[in-house]
């Protein structure tokens, strides 16, 4: 039996939970979904639309708002009682916050950020990226069940989750959570001052990464962006270094974009970046390393020195306009 841990915040289901349901169903085992919170009944009903054997409702006032201590305590009790072979989460920030601690408490390890599942010698293998996406690994959980894994966002399509002909059975699971033992005191989530740049609306984006080497070289890509009438964007390290403001960042911790044209310059293509832009209609990669993961998603590629290629591209666009 596979246990899927759905995610909710503020009584709203995180839709990536459906991706995890879809992956669990593909594996062919019996699937149960767990949703935890303070009275998460509406979300449980929403999830009961899935073709699964049961939706398990973990209702406790100490589970709202989310804390890692509260969730580790509650979900560990569910796992002990239900004895699944495999527990799956979507690889969200919340999962990253508590699932490793939960696995440790049950003397296991979480295999994180998986992009695939397969069977091998009668056992399960998980597929996950390593070395910033340059390689992938087939990984076998060691030791007896339960095993724990989280799934990369976007790796399994949510739309493939199979709906049942009748709603799945719902069952309440009683957990004992000591509110006084929860050490984290969260305040209300908030958004930073409104983002000045909305990259999601851009038709064309020129994005720059580490390959630019120094902030003083930025005019090279700014020139191309101007020639293309494109918005300038960046991968996280460029914003971390303060070379461009955070609101120009594309990727899992920045904006998710899907422009007509995305030109990635000196961006190797770590998965955190790819998830933010792989929906672009046409992707161009310009990079000195032919093995860079950006070329896994690029339609067109030029391998070479960006300081030669980008100015040539800017010039070529200028020539093109004048003809």
């Amino acid at each position, binding site marked *: 039996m596979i246990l899927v841990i759905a995610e909710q915040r503020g009584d709203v289901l995180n839709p990536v939970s459906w991706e995890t349901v879809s992956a669990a169903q593909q594996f062919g085992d019996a699937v149960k979904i767990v949703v935890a919170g303070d009275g998460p009944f509406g979300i449980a009903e929403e999830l009961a639309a899935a073709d699964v054997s049961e939706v398990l409702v973990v209702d406790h006032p100490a589970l709202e708002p989310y804390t890692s201590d509260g969730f580790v305590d509650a979900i560990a009790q569910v796992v002990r009682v239900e004895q699944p072979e495999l527990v799956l989460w979507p690889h969200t920030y919340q999962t990253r916050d508590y699932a490793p601690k939960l696995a440790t408490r049950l003397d296991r390890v979480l295999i994180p950020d998986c992009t695939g599942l397969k069977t091998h010698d009668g056992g399960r293998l998980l597929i996950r990226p390593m070395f910033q996406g340059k390689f992938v690994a087939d990984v076998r959980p060691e030791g007896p069940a339960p095993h724990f894994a989280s799934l990369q966002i976007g790796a399994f399509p949510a739309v493939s989750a199979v709906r049942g002909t009748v709603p799945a059975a719902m069952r309440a699971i009683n957990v004992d959570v000591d509110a006084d033992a929860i050490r984290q005191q969260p305040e209300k989530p908030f958004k930073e001052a409104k983002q000045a740049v909305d990259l999601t609306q851009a038709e064309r984006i020129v994005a720059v990464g*580490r390959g630019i080497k120094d902030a003083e070289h930025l005019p090279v890509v700014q020139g191309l962006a101007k020639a293309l009438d494109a918005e300038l964007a960046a991968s996280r390290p460029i914003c971390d270094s303060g070379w461009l403001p955070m609101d120009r960042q594309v990727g899992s911790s920045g904006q998710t974009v899907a422009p007509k044209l995305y030109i990635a310059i000196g961006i190797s293509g770590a998965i955190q970046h790819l998830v933010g832009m792989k929906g672009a209609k046409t992707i161009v990669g310009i990079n000195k390393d032919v093995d860079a993961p950006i070329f896994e998603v690029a339609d067109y590629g030029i391998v070479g020195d960006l300081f030669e290629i980008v100015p040539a591209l800017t010039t070529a666009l200028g020539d093109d306009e004048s003809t």
Partner: protein
Amino acid sequence: MKIAVCIKQVVTRDWPLRVAESATWVRDQEASFEMNEPDAYALEEALRLKEKNGAEVVVCAAGPARVSQVIREALARGADRAIHVQSDELAFADANAVAEALATSIRDEGFDVVLTGLQSDDQGFGQTGVILAERMGLPHATIIMEVEVGDGRLRVKRELESGWFQWVSLPTPALLTIQSGINQLRYATLKGIMAAKRKEVRIVTPEGLPTAGHRILKLYVPEKDKATRFIEGPPANAARELVRLLREEARAL
């Protein structure tokens, strides 16, 4: 205040990595190594907390003898001393084994705050810090973008998804995993490099390692989602050809 900051040594970002013959790890015998970048932000945050509040900053690293390179660098940037949990097996151990080795070796130090980077550039488990917290019995908070030190407590800003943040307070001792970009990194000065030579590095040999929670059966280059059309030739020609394709084939211009 006593602050531990855990750093990892990883293969240099630009190193042309190949899969080793075993097909379960990379060929890194000749590789150059550097400090895992997310850990550099954790170190920087520790140094800033020291400057603001007064503290001793102790660098903790697990790995083979070569890890002394990044330990020296951290000391040169301003850490006060170091603990090196030394073992060849730790070079490719998973987060569980690394956290166990670190926990055993630093537990008795009585740290008030333990910092780690968010994740490593090699295995990318992103959980050494969280496991370490559990093994040391500490409360933790992850993906931190700001740290405020109060009396016996920390108030920290967590990054959530889609531009959301949340302040969380927790009692010390506590463990935080630091998000990249929380601060601007400093570089070692010549004075710092000289001073580092006199700083204490305590080497600890772990007694056995915990059983791995997972095993890598095969490491390989991922299959491509798309067939990339590579445009060759001198930059000016390649650029013109790309503009033509974007206009005529992709209709993206």
